[in-house]
């Protein structure tokens, strides 16, 4: 009974998510949603996956990674090589994408996360550029002209990957392991002094985040027919970073909402890249001015609902019952 109370909110979300899946599946099958909307929807989902995976690294663990597009690229190319060069099924491509990005994450993360300080920012910035330049110069994957990739990404795949990404990251966050990560974000020295293996948790969060960025890369590669190194430059990393910052560092749903809103904005401004940057800048300035903690602060969408409050024994935001 107690377990049911605690997990009721979870099951309500799951049912809503599957209802959404079924409705969209029906709309696509019946041809009601045209290609433009389907493209936007898929791009939204991919961006949400990128935002949520970076949120785990920056928002939860407090490690500043600014080359997330690098892991996205590793996933995209790894999956494309699997399906296009080695004729493997799409599922193998998706899994390889995640594993390859995670390995890249470990190679970057293990040496730079052992140190306290912002070495990760420098390492990831460099990594993003190295990946892009390497891809430009590897003829096997098409160099600057990129790789053509068969369309294999379907709505069930997109939904399943998005669902698993959010589920894994939110389950991780809402456990003693996630609290260990948050304690590192809050005060690394104190976390260490309380017995938290800080290097282990920083690397774990970074590897999980990289893994899902890789999965997003596989979906992206197999949806847009062609992938080129220029799709994965610093501006893409910057876009993902904006989702997380705009959403409110520390809020998963905030990062997701920001990713959805900004995908819509940039879709409508696709042909006016300058206008897009101007609007981005204005949005950012407005947020800094009026909501400096981001759209959601560290709160989650779910905390707006009563059942969640009851399930967690009340959040007591700003209550004044602190006697003594």
């Amino acid at each position, binding site marked *: 009974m107690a*377990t049911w109370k*605690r997990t009721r909110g979870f099951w309500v979300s799951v049912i809503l998510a599957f209802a959404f899946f079924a409705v969209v599946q029906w709309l696509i099958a019946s041809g009601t949603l045209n290609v433009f909307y389907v493209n936007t929807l898929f791009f939204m989902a991919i961006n949400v996956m990128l935002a949520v995976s970076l949120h785990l690294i920056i928002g939860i663990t407090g490690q500043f990674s600014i080359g997330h597009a690098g892991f996205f690229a590793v996933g995209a190319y790894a999956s494309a090589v699997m399906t296009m060069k080695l004729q493997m099924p799409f599922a193998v491509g998706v899994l390889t994408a995640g594993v390859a990005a995670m390995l890249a994450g470990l190679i970057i993360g293990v040496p730079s996360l052992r140190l306290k300080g912002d070495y990760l920012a420098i390492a990831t910035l460099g990594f993003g550029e190295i990946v892009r330049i390497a891809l430009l110069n590897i003829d096997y994957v098409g160099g600057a002209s990129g790789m053509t990739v068969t369309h294999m990404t379907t709505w069930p795949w997109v939904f399943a990957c998005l669902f698993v990404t959010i589920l*894994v990251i939110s*389950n*991780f966050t809402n*456990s*003693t*392991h*996630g*609290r*260990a990560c*948050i*304690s590192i*974000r*809050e*005060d690394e*020295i*104190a*976390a*260490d*002094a*309380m*017995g*938290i*293996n*800080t290097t282990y948790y920083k690397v*774990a969060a970074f590897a999980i985040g990289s893994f899902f960025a890789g999965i997003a890369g596989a979906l992206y590669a197999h949806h847009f027919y062609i992938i080129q190194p220029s799709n994965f430059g610093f501006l893409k990393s910057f876009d993902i970073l904006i989702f997380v910052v705009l959403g409110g560092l*520390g809020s998963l749903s905030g990062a997701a909402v920001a990713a959805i809103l900004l995908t819509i904005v940039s879709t409508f401004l696709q042909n006016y890249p300058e206008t897009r940057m101007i609007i981005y800048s204005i949005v950012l300035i407005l947020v800094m001015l009026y909501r400096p903690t981001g759209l959601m602060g*560290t709160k989650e969408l779910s905390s707006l609902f009563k059942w969640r409050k009851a399930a967690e*024994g*009340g*959040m*007591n935001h*700003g*209550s004044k*019952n*602190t*006697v*003594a």
Partner: protein
Amino acid sequence: MAAKTPLLKAEEVGIQFGGLKALSGVTMELYQGELVGLIGPNGAGKTTLFNLLTGVYVPTEGRIVLDGETLNGLPPYKITRKGISRTFQNIRLFGELSVLDNVKVAYHAHARHSMASSILRLPSHFRGEQEMEEKAIEFLKIFQLDEVMHEKAKNLPYGQQRRLEIARALAAQPKVLLLDEPAAGMNPQETKELMNLIAFIRERFALTILLIEHDMSLVMGICERIYVLDHGQLIAEGTPEQVRSNPKVIEAYLGEEVS
């Protein structure tokens, strides 16, 4: 007492920061169940000694031994797991986490459910989290913080933040508890309550406690033995009476009130 082996021992430890010798040749022994004071003027090296004992810095000379095992070079989290836990002079709570979660973090090392079990929400996850919650609330009750357990730690008043830091250190289940000026910034009433609390937890958890205090009169009342540091060196040790009448100590504290 001399026949017994000490629980925690610092042997001739010292550390140098660049050219500055912050601490040198400090030898200190803590026996099971003792409440020992560490006093000295500001800048004497008290916090630095804590940082050596907890692995924040590695001593450039000497050895630190807990229960017969040398701790030199171990990272802080391993030392904590071996049984030394601490509070900080400048409070270091996890501000955005709730009071309850602050304590749970310290209990983390004793949790047995794996990362995989949490991601897959296996029964062991729910059991483990349940146990952590019960333990954490138990500690909060002792410190009368259970009523504010859902508050963010950063929103607590100062006195409660100090108490929460001790509760959190205890939740790591140490053998030796190091308290760095726990009464700093408290009014006399709060200080008195805190000292009673320290005496209580020491009995209740069979703890060995090393207490840093800048104010001499405070430690005199509750500590059995006292070490005095000045300019990075031990200048005296003994019972409160011995220390109080030691001319070196009086000189070190010249101009300050000695009671």
